């Protein structure tokens, strides 16, 4: 739920303590290191690492030409384009409105504020299939919002726009929950100083507040984007799933599996995994940048 700051951030500080002697493990009076680490590694291996490796093995059974054919076919390229485009758009919408929501929740008072705050996490708690059918019902041509858009000649459900709507829903909590704590901890002294020097409120926001929250805003954006790329459950009901038009990348894998093309499915899986890794790396770098920033302020 709060997939916000990666756990790795907090631990890095602890690891930075120089080891007293040269050893892989620092001695401790507490028991249970061997068994707890052993179990952790065993479980991690069985559940996560070995199955992921199996996908690599399966994909490596393909020749280079076959791999390219599976992952770079026109249909696959169209799906990547849609997934990237919709995820970028949805994350951008969430960056704007997530920032406003976080700001409002931290700085202002209004009725039912706690309820609103709790509501932000609903996309995490609601099963994606439930969200999917609900969004499809709302944005279908005879749905509450679809009805309003239809006379304007704008179809949302069963088009690429529907994918964007679903991904906006799914990524909504990320930006709010990464920006909110940073905004909360922001000292108002700097703002007072800026104001007393004659800055307008907008100048203070742009020059003082924005730089302080920029790393967390970008982290939230990246998290929402990454989630959007892999999302499946909420999208398939509203997307229409037409090949070349409204078929998302995860659906390619399902399609390959249904044709019993396991190696092809593994190949596309490897591509998506590599992209997820790159985004994860980017988020780690962003958080490092945020820490450097925080150290200066």
């Amino acid at each position: 739920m709060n997939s916000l700051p990666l756990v790795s951030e907090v631990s890095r500080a602890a690891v930075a303590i120089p080891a007293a002697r040269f050893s892989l493990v620092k001695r401790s009076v507490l028991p249970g290191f061997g068994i707890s680490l052993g179990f952790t590694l065993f479980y991690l291996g069985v559940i996560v690492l070995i199955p992921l490796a199996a996908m690599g093995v399966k994909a490596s059974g393909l020749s280079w030409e076959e791999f390219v054919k599976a992952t770079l076919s026109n249909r696959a390229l169209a799906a990547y384009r849609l997934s990237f485009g919709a995820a970028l758009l949805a994350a951008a919408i969430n960056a704007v409105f997530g920032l406003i929501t976080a700001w409002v929740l931290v700085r202002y008072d209004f009725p039912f504020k706690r309820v609103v705050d709790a509501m932000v996490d609903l996309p995490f708690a609601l099963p994606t299939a439930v969200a999917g059918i609900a969004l499809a019902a709302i944005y279908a041509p005879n749905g509450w919002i679809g009805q309003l858009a239809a006379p304007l000649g704008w179809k949302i459900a069963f088009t690429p726009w529907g994918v964007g709507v679903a991904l906006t829903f799914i990524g909504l909590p990320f930006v709010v929950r990464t920006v909110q704590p940073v905004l909360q901890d922001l000292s108002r002294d700097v703002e007072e100083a800026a104001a007393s020097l004659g800055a307008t409120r907008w100048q203070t926001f742009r020059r003082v507040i924005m730089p302080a929250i920029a790393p967390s805003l970008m982290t939230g954006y990246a998290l929402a984007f990454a989630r959007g790329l892999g999302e499946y459950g909420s999208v398939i009901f509203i997307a229409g799933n037409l090949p070349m038009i409204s078929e998302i990348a995860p659906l390619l894998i399902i399609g390959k599996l249904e044709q019993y093309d396991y190696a092809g499915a593994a190949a596309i899986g490897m591509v998506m995994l590599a992209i997820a890794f790159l985004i994860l790396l980017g988020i780690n770098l962003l958080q490092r940048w945020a820490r450097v920033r925080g150290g200066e302020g």
Partner: protein
Amino acid sequence: MKLTVIAAAIAVPCNLVFGLAASWAIAKFEFVGKNVLITLIDLPFSVSPVIAGLIYVLLFGAQGLLGPWLSQHNIQIVFAVPGIVLATIFVTFPFVARELIPLMQEQGTEDEEAARSLGANGWQTFFRVTLPNIRWALLYGVLLCNARAMGEFGAVSVVSGHIRGLTNTMPLHVEILYNEYNFVAAFAVASVLAFLALVTLIIKSILEWRHGGEISAARA
């Protein structure tokens, strides 16, 4: 319906034990490679649920790496209950661990060291000192883990094979009913799931208001 409960009832305790073991090793000891380990624990969150299902099909499916061996011994994992349980464990893998690790790192090892010097053995130290210190964060992690376990769709959909009555969880049932144009029934099942989500949100909010200090360590 029953399968939803079974999957959650196996996945949550498994990840609970894992979360405790991992956070004990990571927070109470210093060792080389800790950051890599933490990144790997977080990995299932960044992997698409479809891939989470796919990897088990590739490993245990008929054409999978272990497929021939499994069918020789008449063991069915994919398109059956064990596969659904495995996929559920995968997608909820980091929930408990990531709540506990930052909190236990913040709390340090002083309490446990004091207990040891007073003569408590390892398990006594854990149950009497560590567990009370982390109970609310633990409950919080279990709550989130359970919500995701009951609601997971993508990963479970891939490994289930859509065998009606045998391998469908509640979220999968929603899809089947919806695709049969039985919208009323689909939304009826969906509203049960939505109600569960609301209950989760309410308990979560109460935990945050009452014990925010302990839980927020994970968000610091």
